[in-house]
């Protein structure tokens, strides 16, 4: 098995054992929400193990448009902690973890299973953590040729490159958010749930090319487009106008599509002053300052 170039989260299929790397929790929640959404839509059982409390984990999914309540009630979705699954207290054993996984696969049966595992448990003081590569190797063997796919989620800022390299070989694909611009001032990346783009930092005309590319790709997808600017501190007029023009351009061809702008009140006001209120396909959603 070889690790291919970065794949989009939405391209994952059955029997994938994918390695997802993320840079911040927003990105983890976004990519996980897309993985969960597509799994639920496909009728699969979906399990997410993370160090977030189950309530927090499901709230983050709900915030991104997943119909969490029904899926939890029917048992199609499970958000759980590591305890009793991957860990027993502070002890990890590849054998024990595989026993749990085998049982989950058996329970899901022909329904199929999507399992996402936030691997941040391996950053803690855990006895047996050296069995991580062995675990990954066994997972790879276990899911091959089945209707099960596993998404291992690694924080690229916190895991050292040696560990990431040692586990990479056991994955069929590597997954990351499509990123159009990333430096200390600005990050422009694809958002997967709800679909669109996410802008963080300060955006001015000097990054207009990256914004244009991100908008073009987002518009090319079907359905509503969310421009998530909640983490954006500044946007200048040329970039704001580019976003408004994108929304304006949507209207004639497919009237039912909308562009949703999520931003702080100050930025929302800027969009209004630039004519946002006159664009039928555009919705402004104001978010509170963090």
């Amino acid at each position, binding site marked *: 098995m070889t690790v291919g170039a970065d794949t989009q989260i939405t391209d994952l299929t059955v029997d994938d054992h994918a390695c997802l790397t993320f840079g911040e929790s927003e990105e983890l929640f976004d990519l996980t929400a897309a993985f969960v959404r597509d799994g639920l839509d496909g009728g699969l059982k979906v399990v997410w193990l993370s160090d977030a409390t189950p309530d927090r984990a499901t709230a983050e999914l709900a915030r991104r448009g997943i119909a969490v309540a029904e899926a939890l009630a029917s048992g199609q979705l499970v958000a759980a902690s590591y305890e009793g699954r991957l860990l027993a207290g502070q002890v990890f054993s590849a054998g024990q973890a595989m026993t749990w996984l085998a049982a989950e696969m058996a329970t899901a049966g022909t329904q199929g299973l999507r399992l996402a595992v936030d691997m941040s448990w391996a950053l803690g003081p855990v006895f047996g953590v050296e069995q991580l590569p062995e675990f990954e190797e066994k997972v790879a063997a276990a899911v091959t040729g089945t209707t099960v796919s596993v998404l291992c989620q690694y924080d690229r800022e916190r895991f050292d490159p040696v560990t990431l390299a040692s586990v990479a070989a056991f994955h069929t694909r590597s997954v990351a958010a499509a990123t159009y611009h990333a430096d200390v001032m600005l990050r422009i990346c694809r958002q997967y749930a709800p679909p669109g783009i996410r802008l963080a930092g300060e955006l001015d005309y*000097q990054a207009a090319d990256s914004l*244009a590319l991100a908008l073009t790709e987002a518009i090319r997808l079907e359905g509503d487009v969310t421009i998530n600017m909640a983490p954006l501190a500044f946007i200048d*007029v*040329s970039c704001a106008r580019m976003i408004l*023009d994108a929304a304006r351009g949507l209207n004639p061809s497919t009237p039912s599509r909308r562009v949703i702008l999520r931003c702080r*009140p100050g930025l929302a*006001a800027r969009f209004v*002053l630039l004519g946002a209120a006159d664009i039928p396909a555009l919705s402004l959603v104001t978010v509170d300052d963090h």
Partner: protein
Amino acid sequence: MTTNGDGRPQSTTTPQGTTTPQSTTTPQSTPILDQAFDAGSLYTLRAAVAAHATQAGLAPDRADDLVIAVHELAANAVRHGAGHGRLRIWRSDQALRCEITDDGVPDAEDAKDAENAENAASEAQAPEWRTEPGHGLSLVRQVADHTSLSSGRDGTSATISFALAASGPPFRLDRHQADGCLVLTVTGPLDLASAAEFSRTIADLLNENENGSVKLILDLASLTGWDSVGLAALITAQQQVSATQGARMILAGLPAHLEQHLREANLNDRFTLADSPATAAKTI
């Protein structure tokens, strides 16, 4: 002041045939900020403006307005002028005054070449979304209390001022019926802190009267000022009223300086204005 296609003011000349942009705004005091900028330092410039404006007593939301105004003018100097320039900010008791200068030569041919080159470049990279630099200037006029531009052979100078918040009455909304109209009296500042309550009230009024025509008079005689969030709330309110069957809205008694600001910002066409609630009731 008229502007040419790229958002820069057209050259104006004195009877002597020369202009000195700085001469119109020569300050007596020492600036609280004096900073040179170019394309690579716009971020630093914005950070410095935000820090100094807040330190000087401008409310954080007004500081955001100042930052975008300075950025747009500085970006114009970088993109369409000399490629670099200088920002100075002075503080008086009532206001912050900012002057952005570039020593570029706004020669008509050069400006055209620069514009053409830029359009060609942006078309090559992003054909779908063409940006119009002129809109930067119109936003500056909307967010700044006063904007003036002068341009000549020695370069371009833009001066904007932002009033520091004077002590005044706190924000309050009162409503009553008069002459078959609903009069909503707005007292104090319409800004980041109060705009949400204002917008909610307007939305409620329109919902309550869903089946009948609403004749809404905004009595703004005691309105002390607005920031871009407050101004946007007024625009949005007008938009919602216009979209509601049979609903109408008149702004009454708008203080002279705010009415002048609406005119300078080219926003007066969006609203129907009246001297007082009484005259508004007759015309609505």
